[in-house]
């Protein structure tokens, strides 16, 4: 029986010629990732092993990004615990504020994720690196601790769903609209425990940033991982960012899929997920009149340079609607600097937006943009669960950077084509 790309990567890392869906395997890891919320729990568990060293100090990355710059004393103490652990274990890839970025923007940029890698992270959006043709998946803190100790972890080999993307997307349609449409179609558990494998001629029209956004939200459909084949764009990205060797895996022609979906990108419209599930989607044409209080542009889903560029393209020469707060979060320091040099930051600030240091802050209702009771936000983030961005009676509408920026101008959820 043929194997999918995901199954092949798992098999190779388990030292096996063949694996089948449902099989439990133990596999060697190329990278173990954690942040300032999940790593303290992992350290607590790691200490129980009595070990004084991690399995490989070069294969662990720790990125304090959730409550940093430290939002309060408790968060500062958690960050100190992580910092001291990183120092003690001589973790090579520890990123302090100043070098830090939102982890899933930072890791590929730093060349720490490459095609063929097997990566786990104590953060659900670790699935982002599937955009590079890696198998990467989110786990919890105890898994991170076990992985830091042994460099290995157990996996149940996933079955897979195939998504054939066809044709070219229309204007103002991005990776965000594509993945929201897919989640709307299959539901928040539509890919539970499975791989989402993306393929088809439509990939040629998707930038790496679009692919990162799509792979990032695979977990929002319940998937174990989302993965893209490696093409010229992937190789160009890897050559620009990474020094470590990579390996390209291809899905077998006779690989077996549980379901196959064809997505005609040319028919996709800008899409918005209404409260309180990412699957609760409507096209921009079906939105109606939804006034908003806040716009958040950024996050591990949409905090990359092309996202900021799109927002600036719309906001340049326009003004944010009076009474609307617009918060922009570049994903990393490098993205921030590039946006600064390109004039993007100036365009955003002149329009009336504020630009923050990289942080996950508002996306998870941590800090830097919490919503009050009854307030409503359009966000380029990934979840709109009850209380996600603040008060349990606040609302989050998920959308692309283009829709978010257009909404900032009008104060209503808006089709960028209609400005």
């Amino acid at each position: 029986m043929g194997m999918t790309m995901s199954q092949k990567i798992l098999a190779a890392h388990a030292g096996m010629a063949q694996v089948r869906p449902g099989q439990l395997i133990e596999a060697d890891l190329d990278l173990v990732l954690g942040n300032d919320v999940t790593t303290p729990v992992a350290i607590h568990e790691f200490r129980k092993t009595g070990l004084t060293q991690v399995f490989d100090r070069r294969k662990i990355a720790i990125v304090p990004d959730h409550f940093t710059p430290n939002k309060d004393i408790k968060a500062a103490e958690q960050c100190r615990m992580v910092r001291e652990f990183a120092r003690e274990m001589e973790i090579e890839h520890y990123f302090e504020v100043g070098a830090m970025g939102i982890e899933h923007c930072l890791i590929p940029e730093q060349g720490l994720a490459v095609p063929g890698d097997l990566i786990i992270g104590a953060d659900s959006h670790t699935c982002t690196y599937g955009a590079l043709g890696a198998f990467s998946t989110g786990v919890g803190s105890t898994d991170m601790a076990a992985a830091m100790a042994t460099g290995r972890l157990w996996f149940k080999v996933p079955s897979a769903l195939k998504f054939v993307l066809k044709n070219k997307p229309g204007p103002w349609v991005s990776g965000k609209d594509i993945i929201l449409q897919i989640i709307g179609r299959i539901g928040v558990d539509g890919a539970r425990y499975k791989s989402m494998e993306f393929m088809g001629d439509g990939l040629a029209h998707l930038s790496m940033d679009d692919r990162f956004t799509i792979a990032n939200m695979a977990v929002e459909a319940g998937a174990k991982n989302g993965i893209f084949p490696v093409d010229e764009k992937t190789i160009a990205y890897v050559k620009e960012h990474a020094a470590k060797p990579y390996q390209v895996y291809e899905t077998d022609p006779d690989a077996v899929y549980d379901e196959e979906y064809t997505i005609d990108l040319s028919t996709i419209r800008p899409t918005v997920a209404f409260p309180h599930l990412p699957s609760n989607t409507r096209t921009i044409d079906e939105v109606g009149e939804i006034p908003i209080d806040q716009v958040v542009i950024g996050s591990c889903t949409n905090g990359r340079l092309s996202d900021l560029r799109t927002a600036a393209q719309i906001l340049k020469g326009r003004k944010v609607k009076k009474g609307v707060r617009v918060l922009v979060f570049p994903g990393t320091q490098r993205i921030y600097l590039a946006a600064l040099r390109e004039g993007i930051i100036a365009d955003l600030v002149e329009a009336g937006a504020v630009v923050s240091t990289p942080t996950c802050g508002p996306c998870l209702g941590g800090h830097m943009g919490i919503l009050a009771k009854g307030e409503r936000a359009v966000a380029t983030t990934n979840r709109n669960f009850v209380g996600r961005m603040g008060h349990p009676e606040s609302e989050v509408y998920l959308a692309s950077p283009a829709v978010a920026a257009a909404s900032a101008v009008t104060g209503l959820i808006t089709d960028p084509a209609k400005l």
Partner: protein
Amino acid sequence: MKAKGRVFKYQDNVDTDVIIPARYLNTFDPQELAAHCLEDLDPEFSKKVQAGDIIVAGKNFGCGSSREHAPLAIKAAGVSCVIAATFARIFYRNAINIGLPILECPEAVAGTEAGDELEVDFDRGIIVNLTKNQTFQAEPFPEFMKEIMAADGLINRVKAGR
């Protein structure tokens, strides 16, 4: 191993943000987490829950964030077991890794109401609704996971060098 307790029942897609909101993730002290467990879904939960009580919910329980604080909060609140139609995968791993018993059993979920009293036999995967006098058979754990639980969590298994 057995559990017996009253049921708190919830719907589909109970996400980890409502199990423990991110505003409380600046600590991982289990008792502090337990005090805010399910706060945004059922503000009375942490006041009403008693040792041994059981959470019963629909499909995709624990979806969203990978925060292990979610099963930690539930366990520290005194909950003896979570029974759901299905679980989100990261929550499932986390619950097993920290030793919070969980069972998938859509039939038991359909046949149980809030306030019912359940008795659960984990070794045999049998759930008895004492209030309604009905018995349900849950999916048994795979051997591999039984090993992790027999070692009382993944870390002890690592410690034992297996």
